[in-house]
């Protein structure tokens, strides 16, 4: 255990903007830079069974950030929860920093996948969820965060179809919907996944109680999607 790890309890939601500023130098962040912030915070603060003390615990929940673009919000939450030393944030993007403009699972404890190229996370998540089922692990759940524009990538739809058919109850996708998809059908995300056998919840992506409620909605024998609506990009 590194001595530089901060105490998770010492940081709360109100600290996240300041932690992001350590990376960006910006006092205020645009809504698109923080589109994932409230969902990621809610996941780490109240939903995920993960710990910076044991980031590789086989019984942990798996959180796969597929939308790796603009990871400052993710890094800020990871720092607040003790996975990343605070002092590393200011080296964001430097040659020897583990914190790049897209996260790398091989460099940061607790990060499940390297992301950046869109449309990879959900397909990997179906494999992870299937592997857990194959190994008889009932406890760990798999969460995968994607963007509404990321859903334009066809690879997601290969995964959506399979997850529905395999009834991957241990899989939850969260779609951050800031209406940035080109040629999207308005309001069509939940409907599309429901056709493939998923359960769905549509929540206010800025309301922590609403997000939590959507994430904890029971979905027996079905994968689940939470569409988290935030400000239009």
């Amino acid at each position, binding site marked *: 255990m590194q001595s530089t790890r901060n105490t998770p309890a010492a940081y709360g939601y109100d600290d996240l903007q300041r932690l992001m500023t350590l990376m960006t130098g910006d006092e205020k962040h645009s809504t698109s830079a923080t589109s994932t912030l409230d969902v990621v915070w809610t996941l780490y603060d109240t939903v995920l069974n993960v710990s910076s003390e044991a980031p590789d615990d086989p019984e942990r929940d798996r959180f796969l950030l597929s939308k790796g673009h603009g990871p400052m919000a993710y890094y800020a939450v990871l720092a607040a929860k003790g996975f990343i030393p605070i002092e590393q944030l200011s080296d964001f993007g430097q040659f020897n920093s583990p914190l790049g403009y897209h996260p790398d699972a091989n460099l940061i404890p607790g990060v499940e996948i*390297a992301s950046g190229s869109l449309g990879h996370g959900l397909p*990997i998540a179906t494999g992870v*969820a*299937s*592997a857990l089922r194959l*190994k008889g692990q009932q406890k760990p759940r798999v969460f995968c965060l994607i963007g509404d524009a990321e859903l334009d990538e066809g690879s997601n739809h*290969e995964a959506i179809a*399979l997850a529905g058919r395999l009834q991957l109850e241990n899989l939850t996708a969260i779609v951050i919907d800031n209406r940035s998809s080109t040629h999207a059908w308005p309001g069509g995300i939940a409907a599309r996944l429901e056709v493939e056998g998923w359960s769905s919840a549509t929540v206010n992506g800025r309301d922590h109680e609403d997000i939590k409620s959507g994430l904890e909605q029971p979905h027996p024998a079905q994968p689940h999607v939470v569409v988290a609506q935030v400000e239009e990009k």
Partner: protein
Amino acid sequence: MVTASMRDSFISTADQLLSERQDTAVVLADIGVSQFREAGVLDRHPDRILNVGIREQLQVSFAAGLAKEGIRPIVHTYAPFLVERPYEQIKLDFGHQGVTGVFISVGASYDSTVSGRTHQAPEDVALMATLPDWQIHVPGHADEAAQLILSAANSEHSSYVRLSEESNSSGRSVNTGKMSVEKRGSGGAPVVVAVGPKLDPTLEAVANMDVTVLYATTVRPFDTDTLRSVAGQNVVLIEPYLEGTSAQEVSAALSDTPHRLLSIGVQRKELRNYGTIADHNAAHGLDPASLRERITRFIDNGRA
């Protein structure tokens, strides 16, 4: 007696692996399902033969997800759909994620001549060779395929095993990663490196010629040491896929010694013909007569 094909050999070897190792799984995209079913393997291991349907991008990413959880995936489909279509998934979801698996293709180069270009991928080895840390095996016989698949599955590396319809008449005992000396010429004689199923046509082509013939069933990593131990001034490389795929490996191996290299393989051209494998071998200059003519011209200091 009907000789087993490389694909038959794969099915039975996978059956053996699934029985011996609970941490293995076969990931399919429809292709191969009927063969596993007919051999009874699907019934024996219903939970660990996972068919994702005709979704090759997902096939690779799904397998990476299995690997992330400690399951050794054996990913199998037709070469163009295994390597070319989901190439970014292989690069990122295996290499960049830092997990490993075993990829086994059928439909090598122009195995399926009558299917046309959509089912042909002579570029497969060249593409896989751009990725760091992948081992690439090219068996020349069903017996070698079984040895190489077992060796690949039981290693910790990522491996690509290229199975083909073309086969040498007999299999060798494979020392994985090492080339064998199939014919020894006089000191300093030209060296001909034959890869996988190109061994038989090569041996026929160089009959009565004073050359050394090396046989390779693993091309990445390339067996530099064996090549250096026998190499003279002239080297001929005969590969059953895109010509020149391993030329850089030969050049790097011999960078400290003056040498000439002739690279022979499937030519970079859009061949809009069907017919037989023999027809295509002739069209690409890979039949014994064409090989002999090119090798002779090269050794005689011509441009072949």
